[in-house]
């Protein structure tokens, strides 16, 4: 892959980018004044790639995801910044779209899949009615064609099509609802899929089916996907690139392998060291001291510095911008070489070849 020489925009190559975010700022109006939820995010989503946005409470990741499809509350303002969507050689300014065009953008170009909670569906409508509503709102008039497509998609997500299409949301389990949501999102053949916490609140075995489904989607259909989650495991399973978000900014972004084994930002390192794995030996975990940032009262300089073991004086004064720390790997940290050294001394997960816990029992009697 050729490298982009631009210092400011961490674009990995000259290949087609269906979605570009440039310097996005999103603020909520509150009684206490405007609260900055997203403070300057610049990203290019590449065609067919899976990008994971990992962050915790107060990171702004959900706001960003909703902002891309402009589903935020009226009290939120997206400015300054631009969101550019590209298809068939055309460039569209998403923030400038008028309501009718915006509706077309949402769902048929860029679909968003929420958590499988009951509120994602209208509880008093059957699945078929909701599918039909969506199709109809986007100009589809042919009842039979919509139905056929819906049944095909439900089959694709491994649900019993006839049974599910006539069911009410509460009749489906959490995992089935999530799959139905994914099927509905695919209805109009979007180019981009945004998934907000797709596996949170699901049981392990159900999570696995969703992850396998998403992997299949990725490999067979080549969607570009953005996963928004706090779950590192989701990123490890599905992402090509991972971006960690803290206090409204991307603090590190890079290929999944680099982020997990060669993190260059103290927050990313802290997250990885705080998450246990089932396979492998027992590992000591360390938590990140302090609390998530208070968006109304952000610290000066680097927003992570009060909790950072690598913080120096400069961190308190200046907020770092993303800079190159490896191939396609960018980090916003003044002291990232120290982070690099720390990881070299204490490699992540011991070696990269970890023992798999169940290898003995796999394969049956």
């Amino acid at each position: 892959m050729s490298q982009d020489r631009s210092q400011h925009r961490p674009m990995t190559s000259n290949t087609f980018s269906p979605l570009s975010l440039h310097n996005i700022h999103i603020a909520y109006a509150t009684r206490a004044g405007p609260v900055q939820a997203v403070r300057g995010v610049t990203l290019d989503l590449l065609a067919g790639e899976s990008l994971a946005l990992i962050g915790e409470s107060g990171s702004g990741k959900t706001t960003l995801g909703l902002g891309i499809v402009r589903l935020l509350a009226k009290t939120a303002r997206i400015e300054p910044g631009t969101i550019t969507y590209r298809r068939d050689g055309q460039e569209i300014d998403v923030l400038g779209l008028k309501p009718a065009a915006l509706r077309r953008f949402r769902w048929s170009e860029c679909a968003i899949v929420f958590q499988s909670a009951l509120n994602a569906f209208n509880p008093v409508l059957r699945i078929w009615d909701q599918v039909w509503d969506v199709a109809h709102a986007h100009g589809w008039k042919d009842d039979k064609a919509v139905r056929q497509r819906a049944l095909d998609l439900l089959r694709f997500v491994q649900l019993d099509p006839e049974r599910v299409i006539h069911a009410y949301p509460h009749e489906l389990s959490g995992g089935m609802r999530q799959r139905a949501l994914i099927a509905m999102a695919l209805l109009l053949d979007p180019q981009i899929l945004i998934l907000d916490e797709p596996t949170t609140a699901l049981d392990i075995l159900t999570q696995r089916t969703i992850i396998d489904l998403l992997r299949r989607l990725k490999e067979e259909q080549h969607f570009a996907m953005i996963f928004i989650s706090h779950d590192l495991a989701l990123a490890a399973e599905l992402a090509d690139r991972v971006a960690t978000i803290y206090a409204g900014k991307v603090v590190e972004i890079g290929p999944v392998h680099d982020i997990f084994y060669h993190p260059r930002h103290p927050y990313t390192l802290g997250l990885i060291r705080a998450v246990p794995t089932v396979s492998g030996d027992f590992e000591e975990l360390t938590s990140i001291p302090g609390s998530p940032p208070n968006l109304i009262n952000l610290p000066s300089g680097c927003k992570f510095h009060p909790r950072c073991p690598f913080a120096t004086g400069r961190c308190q004064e200046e907020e770092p911008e993303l800079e190159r720390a490896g191939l396609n790997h960018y980090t916003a940290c003044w002291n990232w070489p120290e982070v690099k050294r720390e990881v070299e001394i204490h490699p992540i997960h011991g070696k990269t070849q970890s023992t798999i816990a169940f290898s003995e029992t796999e394969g049956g009697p």
Partner: protein
Amino acid sequence: MTALIELCDVSRAFGEGQESITAVDSISLAIEPGEIVCLVGESGCGKSTTGRLVAGLLPPTSGYVLFRGQDISQMDRAGYRRYRHAVQIVHQDPYSSLNPTQSVRQIITTPLRRHKQVLSRSQAERQALELLEVVDLTPALDFLNKYPHELSGGQRQRVSVARALTLNPAFIVADEAVSMVDVSIRVSLLNMLARLRNEFDVTFLFITHDLALAKYFAWEGRIVVMYLGRVIEEGPTPRVIRNPRHPYTQALLSAVPEADPEVAQRKHAIELRSANIPSLLDLPPGCTFHPRCPYFVPGQCDTAVPPLVSVVGGGSAACPIINQERIRS
């Protein structure tokens, strides 16, 4: 040594007649003082109900619960009160575990003053400050005046733990106590709980659906795996994780998403025969896992409920199929 808490063949059903759900079915579980026991399973397996049975918040519909060797249903009032004080619970949801209309001071001093652990308001406050420090909420004085909505999820959970400590419990049931807290904070909460065990001699029953967390927290203890109301495997954590002896445990371990890309790539989830989770209203006969089990033997697995048998490495598992095979080979 007498177990601190013991469930003897305890069952708990909800509802009546046709609509009756057996949330917990004939469970026997003994927890020794100082042990860390992790109860794992997916939703609907009965682990939360078991936690409440242990804490005395629900009476069993059959079987009996022993506290320090005594049947709690046979205790006199004083003894029963001692038992209820000795076993406390920490809930999952930081947003509903604290009364939003009460300040932290009220939340912690109320049980102290009610049970005359302290004599005056100032003494109560002093003890409240100490408890806040034990749970790492410092500077403690700042936190006393706060209301729950001014605290983060992790801080609220710490207040919950401090509240549970007011009666000097011997046993704490932590019901998914860290599941709704930020990932980066979970570990410090778990370490705080582990410290409680060491410094205050508190025994823990840690309920979670997160196997990786169970492995970390209970590495020196035991894991008990539940499925649809029954215990299907239990044993020392390292053994259960490295050498699971029940198909369900194996399936779970193979399905857990891993925060390690190389492991995730190579991991192969065990295929189950069916993706349908049976409803508790209509449990399959025999071994309740049989419709989904890759080792299913018709005629055996769907007729009799397999008992827990000892397995190599410690603990027990309720699967005659794979454990027999093991012994044979």
